[in-house]
């Protein structure tokens, strides 16, 4: 076990006093030269790193209105200072969104603004020294890019944009993060984050078909590379093998089976995740997404459906049309792309699925809104559909549903603590501490409503909770997939 203390859950949430430097030691492993090469960055710290970094920062700002505006207009009002789960959990003031931004804003001001060039001390402009570079590496890897701060900022300043830019600058001078960059290399080479090759994927899904047949006596299929299927399912690769993700995949399979929709996954594009977003790399973002367009064309599908994954849904919903659209080759009757929850919700509303709610009576369920779904995308045709649809599904397939406190759900949701490219064991202390605000809200529904099931629709949330729940004295089995709950309630077989 690690050498840190799990934060205490108090009776009421409290805004902590600042403890400068409390998390200055937290740093993820550096990417090795071959990880860096696979995503197009220098293998190690370049010699003239200061100048390269400043030039890169200038280039990024000139290409992004968001950065340009966000770096100029913060008035330091303090509204965001108590909104970040990492600040609340670690008490390190550099984890206050504005202070995190200022690490980059200070350098920007120093080199690109009149006041910063001539009166640096007055306006808090700083040079990009070795010490500042270390702070960037540490604190831009203590931001899960969850956008909670941007909800509360009077100008919508989004620290995610800043930390993405910070990581992009660091990558450009050869200081990459191992976890993200190694994984991206695997996607480029093999097609998924796990580096699971095509034959292994086919093997895994065949095994899954046998398991489901054994459990239910029904031939639910999990097809791979099936040309002419109606739906291409793009899902996080964790769904193919890890608990509790795979129970969600079984749920998708049962939904497709009962609705009579032919579907397939692609071994070429067997990954919904796109970690390029976390490191702010446009080239990698587009390159990773392009595999999906190619697979959809190759397989001749009519729809693309995205499985349970938070940042992947942001990339799919908000960016795909821009990066790899237009989707004029898909059936215009359906949104492109469509979330698996949108698909299931429509089927449930039409009565196309036979449901046995009582099958879930042993569960007392609460729902964790994943940040990228909640604050960076949508489901359905009305604002906030991303909150309504998953909850309506849960209430349709189960009898016992309880929401957590309103200031911790919907667009106010607290990150699981592991998003934004931080889901790695070398950041365990950060992950456990960052989970604290969510654990606080969870404890309340556990105490008040005997909740025993925490449902999420994000692969990162599921993995993060499975790992951190025990630190807060909950069972790791408490976390599961939304489509696990759906799948358990679906009555397979002929319709009446």
């Amino acid at each position, binding site marked *: 076990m690690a050498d840190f203390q799990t934060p205490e859950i108090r009776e009421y949430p409290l805004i902590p006093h600042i403890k400068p430097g409390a998390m200055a030691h937290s740093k993820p492993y550096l990417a090795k030269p071959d990880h860096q090469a696979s995503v197009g960055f220098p293998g190690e710290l370049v010699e003239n790193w200061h100048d390269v970094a400043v030039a890169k920062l200038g280039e990024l700002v000139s290409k992004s209105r968001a950065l*340009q505006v966000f770096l100029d207009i913060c008035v330091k*009002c303090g509204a965001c200072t108590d909104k970040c789960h990492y600040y609340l959990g670690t008490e390190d003031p550099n984890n*206050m969104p504005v202070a995190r931004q200022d690490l980059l804003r200070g350098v920007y001001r120093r080199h690109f603004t009149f006041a910063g060039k001539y009166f640096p001390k007055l306006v808090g402009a700083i040079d990009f020294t070795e010490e500042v570079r270390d702070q960037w590496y540490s604190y831009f890897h203590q931001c899960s890019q969850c956008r909670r701060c941007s*909800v509360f900022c009077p100008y919508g300043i989004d620290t995610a944009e800043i930390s993405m830019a910070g990581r992009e600058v660091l990558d450009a001078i050869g200081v990459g993060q191992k976890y993200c960059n190694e994984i991206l290399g695997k996607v480029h080479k093999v097609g998924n984050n796990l580096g699971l090759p095509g034959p292994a994927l086919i093997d895994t899904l065949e095994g899954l078909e046998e398991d489901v047949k054994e459990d239910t006596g029904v031939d639910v299929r999990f097809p791979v590379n099936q040309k002419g299927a109606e739906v291409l399912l793009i899902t996080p690769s964790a769904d193919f093998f890890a608990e509790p993700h795979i129970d969600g995949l079984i749920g998708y399979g049962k939904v497709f089976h009962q609705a009579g929709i032919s579907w397939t996954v692609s071994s070429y594009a067997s990954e919904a995740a796109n970690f390029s977003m976390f490191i702010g790399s446009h080239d990698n973002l587009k390159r990773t997404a392009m595999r999906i367009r190619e697979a959809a064309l190759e397989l001749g599908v009519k729809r693309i459906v995205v499985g349970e994954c938070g940042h992947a849904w942001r990339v799919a919903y908000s960016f795909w049309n821009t990066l790899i659209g237009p989707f004029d080759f898909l059936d215009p009757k359906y949104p*492109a792309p469509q979330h698996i929850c949108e698909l299931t919700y429509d089927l449930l509303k039409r009565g196309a699925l036979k449901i046995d709610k009582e099958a879930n009576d042993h569960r007392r369920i609460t729902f964790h809104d994943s940040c990228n779904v909640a604050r960076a995308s949508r489901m359905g045709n009305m604002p*906030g559909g991303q909150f309504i649809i998953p909850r309506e599904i849960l209430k349709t397939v189960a009898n016992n549903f309880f929401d957590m406190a309103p200031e911790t759900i919907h667009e106010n949701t607290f990150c699981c603590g592991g998003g934004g490219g931080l889901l790695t064991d070398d950041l365990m202390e950060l992950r456990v501490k960052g989970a604290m605000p969510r654990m606080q809200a969870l404890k309340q529904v556990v105490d008040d409503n005997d909740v025993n099931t925490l449902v999420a629709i994000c692969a990162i949330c599921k993995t993060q909770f499975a790992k951190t729940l025990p630190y807060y004295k909950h069972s790791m089995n408490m976390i599961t997939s939304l489509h696990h709950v759906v799948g358990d309630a679906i009555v397979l077989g002929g319709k009446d």
Partner: protein
Amino acid sequence: MSLSVIYALLFYAATLVLVIGVARKIAIYSKTPQPLKIPTTPAPLTTSGVVWRMAKEVAVFQSLFKSNKWIWLFGWLFHVALALVLMRHLRYVTEPVWFWVNWVQPFGKYAGFAMLAGLGGLWLRRIVVDRVRYISSPSDHLMLLLLMAIAVSGLAMKYVDHTDIVALKGFMLGLMYFDWQPLPGNPLLITHLSLVLLLMFIFPISKLLHAPGLFFSPTRNQTDNPREVRHVAGWSAK
């Protein structure tokens, strides 16, 4: 050179810096592309919805209200009071005075106190709350001090030591019609005007850019329709 000439020239210079400086920033904001869709959701699905969202941000500071009631109270109080005070000041540069400026007059007279109260509250938070103290640069304190000094010197002229307001109006109108008139030499007035000039000079290089900048914030001004309308700009258009 007489005091009047120096201040006349300073006013022209400050106006040029303010107008050109802010126009330049607005030009930069508008021509810098926003390659991806990044509205903070739930976001409006239509342009009229965005106008409504933005109107609420500008008029009642909706996000700030959700965020922190104290900052909202002090901040909103200050901005509304400032708006009233600015409207009231139009009487010194219009002849005849616009009819609605007369309506504002009774509120504007007291708004100076509200402005001061708001600024005082914000400054108190900056000193007392450890989180806000940590993120404050010297310029953040000085900006509040500058605004408070402007308010105090203005209020002092209204309630303590009256200046020759008719002569001041003559000076201001003279500036506008390039027919320079003498500026009354009242020390409070000179202080007030000097501080306002300073504010005008630093506006385009300071955080006061939040006023025009807010309208360009992509998380607030984008419509949530990426699946329906293909958005491309900058690098994403290539």
